[in-house]
C-alpha cells in the first residue's frame, strides 16, 4: 500500500507539473499561504473575531472536500475527459492484478494527503498573523490544520459514500431525498449546529463528539469502499436527435453553440449546474454579508454588495461550459478558435446570466432595498459578470480549472478579481442602507459599464491569443 501511495503521489505531482509546468505549480502552496495570511491580517485589522474566520475557513474546506470526493465517481472516465488523454494509474486495475477497490481507496487517501499538504497546510499557516496578535497560540495553527483536515476528509467521505451507494443501483432521487430529509430533520431537531461543532474539532479537539467524528470519518470511508461495486457499468444511453432542432432555434450557424449546450445539458447535473453554483455563491454571500456587517457595524447597500459578489458566478458557469472540450479537438475542422470562443460567449449569456440575475433577485427579496440601489446593483452584476467572464476566458482559454494550480495565472486572476471587487464592496459599505449619494450613483454608472466593456474586449481578444497558443 505504501508503494502504491508513493506512485500515486508522484503521478499527481507530475500531472500538475505537466499541465502547468513545475515552476508554476511548485510555488502554489506559498501563494495560498500568502493569500490566506493577507486575508486573515486584513480581517483581523477590520475587527473580525477569530472564531468567525475559523468558521469561514472550515466552510470553505468542507465544500472543497465534498468536491474532491467526486474522484470516486469519475474513476478514470471523467478524469480523462477533463484532463485529456492522460492514462492514470487509477485505471491500472483493468490490466494489472490489483483490485480496483484497493486502487480507488489508495487514490482517495492520496488525494486527502496531497491536499492536506498542498492546500490545507498553507491555509492553516495563513492564520499565523493571529499568533503575532496573541489571538492564537502557536500550537493552535497545528490544531487548526488537523481540524481542517478532518472536515476535508469528512466532505470527501460523504460524497464518496453517496457515489458508492449509487453503484448499487440506488436511484439518484432516493439519495437526494435522504440528503434533504437528513438536513430537514437536523434543522427541525436543532441538531445541525451541534453536529457542525462536532466536525469542527478546532474548538475542543478532545471533546467526545470530535473524537467520535475522528473515528467515524475513516470508518465511513472504509464502509463506502466495501459498498462500492467495482464491476458497476452504466448502461449505454440513447438520445433522440436534438442537435438540428436546437440549432435552428439558436443563433448558431456552425453548431458550436448547440454542441456546448448539449454537452452541458446531457452531462451529470445538466442545466441545474449553473443554477446550483449561483445558489451556493448566494448562500456564501449571505454569510459573508452577516459577518462583514457585524464587523463593520453597518450593513452594506444590498444591491451593490450582492451585485458585486454574485458576478463571480461567471467563473463557475464558464467552467461548466468548457468541461468537455478543448481547442485541439476542433483543429481538424475548418473552424477558427475565435468562433469556438464566440459560441462560449453566447452560451454564457444564455445559461450564465439568468441564474446570476435570479440569485440577485432572491438576495434582494431577502434584504429589501431602494429601487435605485437595486438597479445600480443589477448594472454592477451584469458588468462584473461580463468582466469576470472575459478575464477568465483570456487567462485560461478553454481550461479554467487550470487556475487551481497554476501559480502565475491564479495570481493574475486573483488580482484581476480583487481590483474591481474590493472597491465595489467598500463603496457598498460606505453607502450603507440609506439613499445613495448622487456622486456614487454617477461613479458606479460610469465605471461598471467600462469594466463590462473591458470584459467583452478580453473575451474577443481570447480567440486570437489562444489560436496563437496552439
Amino acid at each position: 500500500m505504501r508503494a502504491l501511495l508513493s506512485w500515486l503521489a508522484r503521478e499527481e505531482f507530475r500531472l500538475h507539473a505537466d499541465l502547468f509546468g513545475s515552476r508554476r505549480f511548485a510555488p502554489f502552496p506559498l501563494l495560498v499561504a500568502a493569500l490566506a495570511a493577507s486575508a486573515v491580517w486584513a480581517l483581523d485589522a477590520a475587527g473580525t473575531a477569530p472564531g468567525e474566520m475559523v468558521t469561514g475557513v472550515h466552510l470553505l474546506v468542507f465544500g472543497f472536500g465534498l468536491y474532491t470526493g467526486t474522484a470516486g465517481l469519475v474513476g478514470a472516465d471523467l478524469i480523462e475527459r477533463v484532463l485529456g488523454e492522460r492514462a492514470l494509474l487509477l485505471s491500472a486495475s483493468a490490466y494489472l492484478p490489483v483490485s480496483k477497490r484497493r486502487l480507488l481507496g489508495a487514490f482517495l487517501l492520496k488525494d486527502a494527503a496531497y491536499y492536506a499538504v498542498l492546500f490545507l497546510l498553507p491555509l492553516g499557516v495563513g492564520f499565523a498573523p493571529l499568533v503575532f496578535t496573541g489571538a492564537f497560540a502557536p500550537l493552535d495553527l497545528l490544531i487548526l490544520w488537523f481540524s481542517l483536515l478532518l472536515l476535508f476528509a469528512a466532505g470527501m467521505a460523504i460524497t464518496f459514500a453517496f457515489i458508492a451507494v449509487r453503484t448499487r443501483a440506488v436511484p439518484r432521487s432516493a439519495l437526494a431525498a435522504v440528503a434533504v430529509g437528513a438536513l430537514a430533520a437536523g434543522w427541525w431537531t436543532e441538531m445541525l449546529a451541534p453536529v457542525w461543532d462536532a466536525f469542527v474539532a478546532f474548538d475542543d479537539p478532545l471533546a467526545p463528539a470530535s473524537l467520535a467524528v475522528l473515528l467515524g470519518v475513516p470508518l465511513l470511508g472504509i464502509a463506502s469502499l466495501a459498498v462500492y461495486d467495482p464491476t458497476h457499468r452504466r448502461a449505454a444511453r440513447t438520445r433522440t436527435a436534438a442537435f438540428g432542432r436546437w440549432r435552428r432555434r439558436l443563433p448558431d450557424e456552425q453548431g458550436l453553440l448547440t454542441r456546448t449546450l448539449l454537452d452541458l445539458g446531457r452531462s451529470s447535473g445538466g442545466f441545474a449546474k449553473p443554477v446550483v453554483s449561483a445558489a451556493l455563491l448566494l448562500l456564501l454571500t449571505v454569510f459573508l454579508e452577516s459577518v462583514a456587517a457585524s464587523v463593520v457595524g453597518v450593513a452594506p447597500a444590498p444591491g451593490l454588495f450582492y451585485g458585486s459578489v454574485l458576478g463571480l458566478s461567471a467563473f463557475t458557469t464558464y467552467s461548466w461550459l468548457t468541461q468537455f472540450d478543448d481547442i485541439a479537438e476542433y483543429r481538424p475542422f475548418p473552424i477558427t478558435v475565435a468562433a469556438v470562443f464566440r459560441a462560449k460567449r453566447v452560451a454564457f449569456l444564455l445559461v450564465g446570466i439568468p441564474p446570476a440575475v435570479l440569485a440577485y433577485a432572491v438576495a434582494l427579496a431577502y434584504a429589501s432595498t431602494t429601487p435605485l440601489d437595486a438597479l445600480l446593483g443589477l448594472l454592477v452584476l451584469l458588468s462584473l459578470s461580463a468582466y469576470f467572464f472575459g478575464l477568465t476566458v483570456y487567462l485560461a482559454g478553454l481550461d479554467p480549472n487550470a487556475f487551481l494550480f497554476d501559480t502565475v495565472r491564479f495570481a493574475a486572476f486573483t488580482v484581476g478579481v480583487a481590483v474591481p471587487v474590493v472597491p465595489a464592496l467598500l463603496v457598498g459599505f460606505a453607502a450603507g442602507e440609506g439613499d445613495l449619494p448622487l456622486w456614487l450613483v454617477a461613479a458606479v454608472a460610469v465605471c461598471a459599464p467600462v469594466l463590462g466593456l473591458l470584459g467583452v474586449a478580453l473575451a474577443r481578444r481570447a480567440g486570437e491569443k489562444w489560436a496563437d497558443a496552439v
Partner: protein
Amino acid sequence: MPDGSHLAPNVNAAPSESGCMAAIEASGLTKTYGDVRAVDGLSLSVERGELFGFLGPNGAGKTTTIELLTGQTRPDDGRAEVLGADPAADPLGVRERVGILPERHAPPSYLTPREFFEFVARVRDLDDDAVAERAAEWAERLGFASKLDTLAADLSRGQQQKVMVTQSFLHDPEAVFIDEPLANLDPLVQERVKRALAEHTEAGNAALLSTHNIEVAAELCDRVGIVTDGEMVTTRQMDGAGAESLMDTFLEAVGEDARDTPR
C-alpha cells in the same frame, strides 16, 4: 448489409490542368518542439489518385507532419501545398477541402453519432439531408447503424473509431489525411475501411495514410515513404510488392533495433 459501393467518392477530382501539380506537396518541412526536432526538412509529394503510405516507427514525426500539412500547426521552416493552397497561410481553406482522421480523437462525448454528423455538416457548410443520407450509408457499411442515437461517451473505442472514419469522408474530400485508420476495428470493418480508401483514390482523389503497420502499407499503398527521426529516409513504389519486401526496405532505412525515437 450493403457493401457501400454506391457511396460515390468525389469523381470531380481530376488531375489539374497542367497535369503535373501534386495534390499534396511538401518541401523542407521542419518543426521543433523545445529541443526535439519532430520534423526535420521533410519533403514529399502525393499525386491525385494516389494512396501514399507514410510509414515509420512510433514517434517518428508522422502525426506532426499531418498537422503541418493540414494547417493545424505552423512549420518553423519549409513550405507545403495541399490542393493548391498553402496550409500555413490558409489553414481553414485547406481543412474545408480535405478530410482528416486524427490518431487519438474521439467524437464529442455528449453528442450521438447522428448529431455529430449534423455538427460536421454545419461546420463544413454542407446540405443537412445529403449528409444524413451519406452518414446512414457509412453507418451501414461500417456496422454502427444501431448506435446512431447512442451518446458517444457510451460507445466502445471501435465504434468511436468508425464514427471518426465516417466524419473524415462525409464531405467527399479531394484529399484525406488518415492516421492509423484501422485502430480498434474488427477484421471485417478493417476490410471495409481499406475498400473505402481504395475507392477514394480510384476516383482520382489523393490519400496520405500514416501507419506503423507494414502489412497495411504494403497492401493498400501505391507508394510508401519511410520516415524516422522526422526525416523522410526513402520512398518506394509498391507495384504489388508484398509486406516482406517492404519490411526489408524498412529495416534497411530504419535499422534492425527498435529505435528510441525523439517523441
